[in-house]
């Protein structure tokens, strides 16, 4: 029973990890927070769904291509959010960045309602939902697929950050903004890139989770708070922390929902957030001092 809950918790947790990674990348690189992350997640799911089923004269694309379209759309949205909401308000203060981001999340949500309607659509399952039996536990191939893709995305991210020139520039900017600027790394370039990469991750998370739930314009607000909790749990701004925080949150949530009560499932995530912020604000793997959010 417990193992069962842990495994399905890990699947949803790996999706939380991707969203938390997006927050951590942006925080460590740009010292900003994208409060519209949840809506990037939602928009990517809708775009991928449209690409998958075809619209108007556009042909229906295979799943892989549809994922790519959704992720690219997410990264473009991230680029616009950075350049319109974050860069213009960076000197005015956090309050304005927050206001502009929230404006964006409303904009994306209402645009989605306008384009796709407010009722939501079913994302066709790509992988069989019928659980496999391994010993005494059941594992849905869907869950394995989600975990596999998330892991692949994280590995690609790792190689991008550590092996490529652009990734190195991003890490340099994250380590020390001023000195990176002095070394000729354009802030505007690395910041835009960070937002795009982060939005790719959030978008991918949206597409992965879409077959498990209904795709609705409101789905972003739920994942947005889960992503924040996961990021805070692992340590805001820490990359390994985001992965750990997401997985841990998924498992904790699933166990408490399974063993205690599912009606207070969403409150668990809020409670974890408040407790961590109060008693261990640097998170589980966070860097102490100086980097507090």
């Amino acid at each position, binding site marked *: 029973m417990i193992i069962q809950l842990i495994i399905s918790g890990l699947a949803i947790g790996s999706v939380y990890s991707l969203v938390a990674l997006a927050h951590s990348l942006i925080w460590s690189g740009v010292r900003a927070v994208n409060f519209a992350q949840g809506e990037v997640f939602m928009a990517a799911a809708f775009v991928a769904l449209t690409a998958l089923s075809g619209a108007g004269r556009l042909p229906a694309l295979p799943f892989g291509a549809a994922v790519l379209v959704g992720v690219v759309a997410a990264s473009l949205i991230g680029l616009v959010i950075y350049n319109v909401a974050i860069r213009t308000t960076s000197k005015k203060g956090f309050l304005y960045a*927050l206001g502009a981001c929230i404006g*964006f999340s409303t904009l994306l949500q209402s645009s989605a309602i306008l384009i796709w309607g407010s009722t939501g659509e079913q994302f066709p399952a790509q992988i069989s939902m019928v659980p496999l039996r391994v010993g005494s536990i059941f594992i849905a191939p869907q869950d394995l697929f989600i975990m596999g893709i998330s892991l692949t995305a994280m590995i690609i991210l790792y190689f991008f950050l550590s092996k490529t020139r652009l990734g190195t520039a991003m890490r340099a900017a994250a380590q020390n903004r001023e000195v990176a600027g002095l070394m000729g790394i354009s802030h505007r370039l690395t910041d835009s890139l960070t937002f795009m990469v982060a939005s790719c991750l959030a978008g991918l998370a949206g597409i992965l989770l879409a077959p498990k739930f209904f795709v609705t314009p409101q789905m972003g607000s739920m994942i947005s708070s889960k992503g924040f909790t996961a990021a805070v749990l692992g340590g805001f701004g820490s990359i390994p922390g985001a992965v750990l925080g997401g997985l841990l949150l998924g498992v904790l949530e699933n166990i408490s929902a399974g063993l205690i009560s599912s009606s207070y499932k969403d*409150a668990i995530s809020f409670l974890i957030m408040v407790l961590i912020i109060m008693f261990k604000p640097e998170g589980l793997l966070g860097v102490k001092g100086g980097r507090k959010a």
Partner: protein
Amino acid sequence: MKARHHENFITHVLPFILIGVIALVPLLTRDPYLMHILVLGGIYVILAIGMNIITGYCGQINLGMAGFFAVGAYTSALLTTRLSLSFWLALPTSALVAGVAGVLVGVPALKVRGGVYLVLITTSFAGIVQVILNQWVSLTKGPMGIVGIPAPAIGNVLIYERIHWFYLTYAIVAVIVFLAIRLVGSRIGRSFVALRESETSAQSIGISPAFYKVLAFVCSAVLAGIAGSIYAHYMTTISPDAFGFNLSVLALIMIVVGGIGSIPGSIVGGVALALFPEWLRALGPYQSVAYAAGIILAVVFLPKGLLMMGVDAVQLIRKWFLAPDETSEKEVS
């Protein structure tokens, strides 16, 4: 000397002129729909003043206003429907209960440094309140909400007509504006501002950050509770949907649009955000998209808020039309 005079006018006289102008609207039209929007606007003004005290004056970003608003609304609704208390007792009680919630949020918020965690902790509070409203069915009736919240009475007259609500709301708004102006001009208000500007220097002159931050949370929670109580009795029906994250966001946008750290700005912001969606109604399905775009534009391009932009415009016009000697005198002072 003159600049000081000018500032005095904005902080002490302008708010009452604004309320007076709104109170004159029924002379022109008694359209019930407009009255409805303006009553909501008045409730928003109270919420915006609360938001401005904590965020504008004390510099603590609070995205949990919906939680305090919900606490006020449900306290008032439960007291009047279950215990058949009068509105006039339920209103202060809900302010009190919301104030206690303010302590509950303010104390943990003290441990938090920096804006992001404060945003997260206050949103979590509002999120927890909403989960409780939805799940504690025996008390709150869950997603069904509470219906049949009685109208307040003054003497033997029940207040249920829009126009009566309009006058009642703006009377309460006027009292709150008066008290808020006194508060922000007092030693307490100056301490809030000192904390916002620099916690270290505020501490060095003997201002306790812990005490004043919690106090600011309590003040804003009390105002949100009062706004919630009025809302519950005005709407007569409340359900958890009305107190979601969007409401907290609305409170933030109100002060950004109206003017951060300004009581008259809160009046402008509150009424503007009640009216703004109505102006966009002609756009049909594009209404909410245009609304969101308008908010982004306002945040990015109106850093001082609508009110100060208006004041600046008036000053500019005066500079153009006044005699040159008077202008130069102003520049000297």
